[in-house]
């Protein structure tokens, strides 16, 4: 009788161990080294955009002009325009805006980040005057789980810059796919378009 109870206890113990063992981990989405070999290190225009841009572009949305670029940086930790964190090591995103319309009043709210998170970034009052401008540098602020999901479902990663004024909402979206390569992933199909 005792043996039976002992066996049952052993069985329960082992089955309990089996259920608490960690699930297999998914591989990290990392940047292929070849992703950065096409970076343009010579472009650095009036908007102080980063060197080593690998894709993106610019777009006009009413009186706003937007730029969104993916760029390579092997180490996103030094001071100034680089933030420490990027879910995809070595990959950053840069966005800029400038306003070319008439002066408008009221508060201005600017969001810059992954879609659909719509992260607030800058707010100020006093409106906008012609030639107002600004820029943001960030690492990729998307969790590895979400990045992996994008790869598995073949969905693009999307980043957005969105400006809300009393006149309306203006912005641009950068999207790209993560294509598997031998040593990681390549950002491909990098496109910019106006927000919906």
């Amino acid at each position, binding site marked *: 009788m005792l043996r039976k109870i002992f066996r049952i206890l052993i069985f329960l113990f082992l089955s309990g161990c089996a259920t608490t063992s960690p699930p297999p981990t998914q591989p990290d989405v990392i940047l292929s080294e070849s992703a950065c070999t096409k970076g343009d290190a010579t472009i650095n225009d009036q908007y102080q955009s980063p060197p080593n841009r690998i894709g993106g572009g610019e777009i006009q949305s009413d009186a706003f002009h937007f730029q969104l670029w993916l760029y390579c940086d092997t180490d996103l930790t030094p001071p100034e325009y680089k933030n420490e964190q990027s879910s995809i090591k070595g990959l950053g995103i840069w966005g800029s805006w400038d306003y070319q319309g008439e002066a408008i009043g009221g508060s201005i709210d600017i969001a810059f980040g992954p879609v659909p998170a719509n992260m607030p970034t*800058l707010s*100020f009052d*006093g409106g906008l005057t012609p030639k107002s401008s600004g820029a*943001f540098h960030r690492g990729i602020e998307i969790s590895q789980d979400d990045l992996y999901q994008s790869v598995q479902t073949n969905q693009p990663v999307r980043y957005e810059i969105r400006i809300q004024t009393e006149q309306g909402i203006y912005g641009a979206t950068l999207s790209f796919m993560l294509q598997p390569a031998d040593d990681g992933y390549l950002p491909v199909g990098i496109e910019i378009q106006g927000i919906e």
Partner: protein
Amino acid sequence: MKTRIGRLVVSTAIALSMLFSGRGPARIKTTLAEGIRPPAPDVIPAEIGVSPITQDVTSIDKWRAEWTVVIYGQGASYTLYVTFGDGGYLNRPGVAPGTYYYTWYYDKAAPKTYNQTWRIIGTGGPAQVNSTVYRKNY
């Protein structure tokens, strides 16, 4: 003694060369050059004030920093240029003297210090003030 003799020789040489070149001794002219304007009236220096000068940002407030910015000056408007210390910047021309409120969200990452610069350009300027944000790990 040698130095005195040297100076005498040099000054004599200059005087002789002026005499023989026909230019005569140098004269001080008091006429104003073209383009020079009379002194401008006094301009009160422009100033910019930022509060707080230092602050912490934490996850509780989603790493949000806030400032009150006051611009003083005689000009109708100023260009305000702000750098937020993380590569982000804001350029605002045509900002009238007054009080303004700014909010900036920092990236979520390891503890770090960000230094901001607030600079105005215009009548009585430029003027600049610096502030600091400490990003905490909680």
